């Protein structure tokens, strides 16, 4: 009985996290389209509900009532599993995101490694979808995205090492608390820029949306998907984008910490600060989508392996030497 009550309590906590995440994913899709439209001097979705806020809900309804078509030559089990994997991976990563010093579902020792691991697993949804569709466009899209995501993961990993050198712990709350005096965006600003661009590539956002480049590959790995399965890919993609923004906010922008440590600001709960920082990063994501043309594939690979990887490695050496020389290494 006691055990059951623990289980119910945990389920309640998980729902309390997941439902807001899913709702905010729907809202963020609206925000993305709105920002995109404003940059191009259009109105964007503004018909359904106030300011068009319910547009995503209407879209979701449309997807639910559409027929799910499974191609007869596809590998059915994997074809159905792919969107489920994408969405599950995008959602389970939220378990370790700290919304304040105490509001975190799982305060594990290796939080940042968990985030990194889950985001690196995200490529499977895409590969599975692309391969199981048994068709040329999805397959090409899947191969492209696998190469792209693996390449940019490397530089994200090295950037995380930079931050960890300054923190001395893999716990996400420790990372946030280590930024009490100064956000890491100031000393590690070049790393923040590289992280931001790598996050764009990791989530297949424009200008790195080659896996689904509509001019060349129709819709990449999603070509054969329809109805709710397509919507799940979509939700997973946006949940991943939000997750990357949250990761950036925690690693560089002080997570749930208020920007100024004085009285009226410290009253605001940490969750609100975190959400504001995530929103700031997301609006940057949306702006980039609107103003930058798509990269060519060889440029994309060159940027990942020949520019970002050496730069972030050099920065690791610099950070480590600086911390060592001035005796600032976080040794306990």
């Amino acid at each position: 009985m006691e055990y059951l009550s623990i289980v119910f309590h945990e389920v309640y906590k998980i729902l309390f996290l997941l439902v807001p995440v899913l709702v905010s994913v729907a809202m963020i899709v609206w925000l993305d389209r709105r920002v995109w439209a404003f940059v191009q001097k259009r109105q964007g979705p503004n018909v359904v509900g106030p300011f068009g806020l319910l547009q995503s809900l209407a879209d979701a309804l449309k997807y639910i009532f559409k027929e799910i078509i499974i191609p007869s030559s596809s590998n059915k089990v994997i074809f159905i599993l792919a969107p489920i994997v994408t969405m599950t991976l995008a959602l389970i990563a939220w378990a370790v995101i700290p919304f304040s010093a105490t509001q975190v579902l799982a305060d594990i020792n290796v939080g940042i490694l968990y985030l990194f691991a889950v985001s690196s697993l995200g490529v499977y949804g895409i590969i599975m979808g692309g391969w199981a569709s048994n068709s040329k466009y999805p397959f090409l899209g899947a191969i492209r995205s696998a190469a792209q995501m693996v390449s940019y993961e490397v530089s994200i990993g090295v950037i995380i090492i930079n931050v960890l050198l300054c923190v001395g712990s893999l716990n996400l709350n420790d990372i946030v608390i280590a930024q009490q005096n100064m956000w890491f965006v100031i000393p590690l600003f070049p790393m923040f820029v590289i992280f931001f661009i790598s996050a764009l590539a990791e989530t297949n956002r424009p200008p790195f949306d080659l896996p689904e480049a509509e001019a060349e590959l129709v819709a990449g790995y999603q070509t054969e998907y329809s109805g709710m399965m397509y919507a799940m890919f979509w939700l997973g993609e946006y949940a991943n984008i939000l997750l990357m923004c949250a990761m950036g906010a925690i690693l560089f922008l002080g997570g749930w910490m208020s920007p100024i440590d004085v009285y009226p600001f410290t009253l605001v709960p940490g969750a609100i600060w975190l959400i504001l920082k995530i929103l700031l990063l997301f609006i940057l994501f949306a702006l980039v989508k609107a103003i930058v043309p798509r990269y060519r594939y060889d440029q994309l690979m060159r940027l990942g392996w020949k520019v970002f990887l050496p730069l972030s490695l050099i920065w690791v050496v610099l950070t480590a030497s600086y911390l060592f020389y001035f005796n600032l290494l976080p040794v306990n």
Partner: protein
Amino acid sequence: MIAHAIFFYTFSIIAVVSAIMVTASKNTVHSVFFLILDFISISCLFIMIGAEFLGMIMLIVYVGAVAVLFLFVVMMLNVAQQKNQWFAGQATSKHIPVGLIISTLIFFEIIIVIGGWKYKPEIFDINNSLANASVSNTHSLGQILYTDYIHVFQISGMILLVAMIGAIVLTFRQRSGVKKQSYIKQISRERAEGVEVLEVQSNKGVKIDD
């Protein structure tokens, strides 16, 4: 405690069954997916015994990088050719005895190691800092790896680097006649060399030379 046992048996059963399915499934891509499932359940087992760092590194390195490359290669194979593998009932395969010999060897090695562990535990008691429960196992791993075993660690890194360079050298071939795009050339192009304004005469047109 019961919940612990239930989780342990669930993960280990999934691990064993998917390990069997890696060899048993006829579709190569399916076997890679079973391999991934195997890796994931093994890393869950690592986390269950408190080795959370190892579990996460297992996920990142094996599932996030190695298995992706496996999948990459296997997806490109011509699957139609390999419908008739030995599991489908072909008796001509010569790999079975070799595989059996290797697996017996590995089995006996594991038996020897576990037996030694059981009967002479002091041999394996290399460093006490691992058993120190007050620091997290990421810290204790780092403290051992970068102090007592720094040379071994560096040498293994070197070996990996040599292997990587070797693989690149072996597969690299200079192909002639391939058009390369130099991005510096592309972005340093001026308008003067790219565009030319001509007065086009009627009924004569312009001669384009390229």
